[in-house]
């Protein structure tokens, strides 16, 4: 040890129990920053100690509060040594107890330059959009990217509508729905973004297939089919064998899309696969023989056989659909931690998915 080494701040170790995951935190770095940099899906939102999303109980070690945790945490949490990893300076190595800590390490998001290569109409207001990137992007099925054009500062978030490939993809596919008066989708649907350079940031999001062998209940609404297609095609590629029932909520028959792709998934699926389209606004006099109503109203009828098998639910669509479907799932006895949602209105990172 050199004579000046005693003045050098040293990295300290964070261990997460019961998973045993650990990572080092450099001087000047927050625990949250270090965990995110390692690719762990650390729960968080504001990153500055105001929202409390990242809170976790510390079972060993000492930290210094960089803000008064009492402003944010409740009395009981303070008594149980909860800390805010986004605003704690480590005095020693520490151990945090996070029972449901996601072990999966995600690919850290990066900035890319992209070009919109082509757009293909899927319905009146949904397009398949193909974007080529300046380098390969690695992602997990179910995640999303942010797109940003120079004239609009707020980035738009869209999920991958394709399965990931080994070593990443230089071309990505998304489903994009036209938002009434939407600035970004207005430009896109008017053809003004074709062959234009856009900024792409990703991969982002915590919507991906959790491990298990229990049945899958997938529920998508509108352009929310994209991450489900991504996950299901990835399951086929990885030879995952789980029973699956897939609901697709749309307004009318003309709003159903990628039916051939779903048919292909059904044919290649290892296990039982059932596809249930549910239409909310199909005219009564039409000869639609399938389910009618909002998609959540059909869940109970089709999933009874799976309820006692501890199914995992994956939801993607508008907030009202997510809320209604989540409530139905919980009422049916599905465990809350097994319900995973990719909300268009994503409160966790305060971005609106269109």
């Amino acid at each position, binding site marked *: 040890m050199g004579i000046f080494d005693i003045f050098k701040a040293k990295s300290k170790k964070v261990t997460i129990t019961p998973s045993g995951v650990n990572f080092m935190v450099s001087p000047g770095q927050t625990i949250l920053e270090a965990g995110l940099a390692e690719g762990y899906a650390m729960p968080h939102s*504001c990153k500055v100690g*105001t*929202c409390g999303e990242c809170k976790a109980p510390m079972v060993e070690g000492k930290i210094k509060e960089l803000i008064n945790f009492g*402003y944010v945490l409740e*009395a009981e949490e303070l008594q149980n040594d909860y800390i805010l990893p986004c605003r704690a300076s480590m005095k020693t190595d520490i151990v945090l107890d996070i029972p449901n800590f996601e072990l999966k390490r995600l690919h850290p998001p990066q900035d890319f330059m992209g070009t919109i290569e082509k757009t293909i109409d899927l319905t009146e207001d949904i397009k398949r959009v193909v974007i080529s990137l300046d380098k390969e992007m690695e992602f997990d099925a179910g995640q999303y990217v942010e797109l940003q054009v120079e004239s609009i*500062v*707020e980035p738009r978030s869209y999920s991958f509508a394709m399965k990931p490939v080994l070593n990443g993809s230089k071309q990505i596919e998304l489903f994009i729905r036209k938002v009434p008066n939407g600035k970004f989708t207005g430009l896109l649907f008017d053809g003004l973004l074709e062959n234009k350079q856009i900024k792409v940031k990703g991969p982002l999001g915590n919507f991906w297939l959790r491990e298990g062998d229990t049945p899958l209940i997938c529920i998508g609404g509108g352009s929310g089919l994209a991450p489900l297609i991504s996950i299901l095609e990835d399951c086929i590629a990885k030879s995952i064998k789980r029973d699956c029932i897939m609901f697709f909520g749309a307004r009318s028959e003309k709003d159903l899309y990628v039916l051939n792709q779903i048919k292909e998934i059904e044919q290649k699926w290892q296990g039982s696969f059932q596809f249930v389209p549910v239409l909310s606004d199909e005219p009564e006099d039409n000869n639609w023989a399938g389910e009618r109503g909002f998609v959540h109203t059909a869940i109970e009828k089709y999933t009874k056989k799976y309820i006692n098998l501890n199914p995992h639910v994956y939801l993607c669509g508008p907030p009202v659909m997510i809320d209604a479907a989540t409530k139905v799932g919980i009422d049916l006895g599905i465990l809350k931690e097994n319900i995973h949602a990719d909300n268009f209105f994503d409160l966790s990172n305060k971005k609106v998915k269109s």
Partner: protein
Amino acid sequence: MNDYIKFYLAPLVQVVGAVGIYVGGNYMWAGLATLPVLAILDTILPDNFEKRKMNNRLLADIPLVISALLGIALLFLLAWKINVTPDLTTLQMVGGALSLGWLSTVVSLPATHELFHEINPIRKAIGIVGQLAFFDVTRHISHNNGHHLDVASSLDYDTAKRGENIYKFAVETGWQNHKESFKLEANALKKRGKNAWSLSNYMYKALLILVFFYVGVYYIGGETGLLYVLLAQAVARLWIEGLNYFQHCGLIRVNHAPILHYHVWNHLKPISRIITFEITNHCDHHQDAFMPYYEMTPDKDSVRLPGALTCFAIALIPPIWFNFILKPALKEWDNRFANDEEKKLARAANKAAGWEDWIK
């Protein structure tokens, strides 16, 4: 010009004020004289949408630290000058106080705000203590744990209601912010099983900071020096609430709904952006308070108000401010950006303010 260098305009303007006070006489007004000069420049120059080409936080923080410390040093300088120059006229001393009031508003507030958001304990402490320049060493508490959660909603003290003029807002929001900080601190202690008046209360530290500061000012400047330092701080404080006013006034957000880029007013004139360390371009800051000032991207698509320095002048005459600046901006904002829920609230707010219903 190199972006790192541009931000030295802020401490440079403070140095103009310092030289003016040091020289004395009518030069005591020099700091305030920078206001019309900068405001005219800001008005003439077009909006600036450039993103800063900076990435070294340590280098970028140097002008912030200088400005935060200079803000306090200038008050001591004023006290000293008044004490050693008995022949200064009242008008000249008022000029000194107004000069420092202005410099604290336009430079000290943005610099200290940026610093108290940091995690580095030394820079954070400089940011907190630097708020002395405008008589407020508790603002960071209500700002972080109130304004950042509630911006543009009815719960936010820092968002003026439609029809509320700058004078009413400046007086009320200052008081409300102090109250909120006291409340947050007391609740935090109660949660730890301590009495709100226990010695762990940060407010004692705040009080000690103030006592040390005023003892120092009195020692250097005597009674008269202390009086004019208090005047400079009071002017700064009222003016700062004015800056606060221009950032969000009249905007609407449903309580607890996600914060989006349009919940902030933008003033993207080049001088406004530089001298306030990008606080007039802070829509990114409300989405990610962890983001340093030089990483914020100007929102080209936003409804923009005139430069912040011009707004300072116009808002002093509320009828002109409302009819020629704020109402047209809000009309565009309501119809271009507000969602359906926000439109409902905006319509009610217009009605309550006695304004016409312009929502389509």
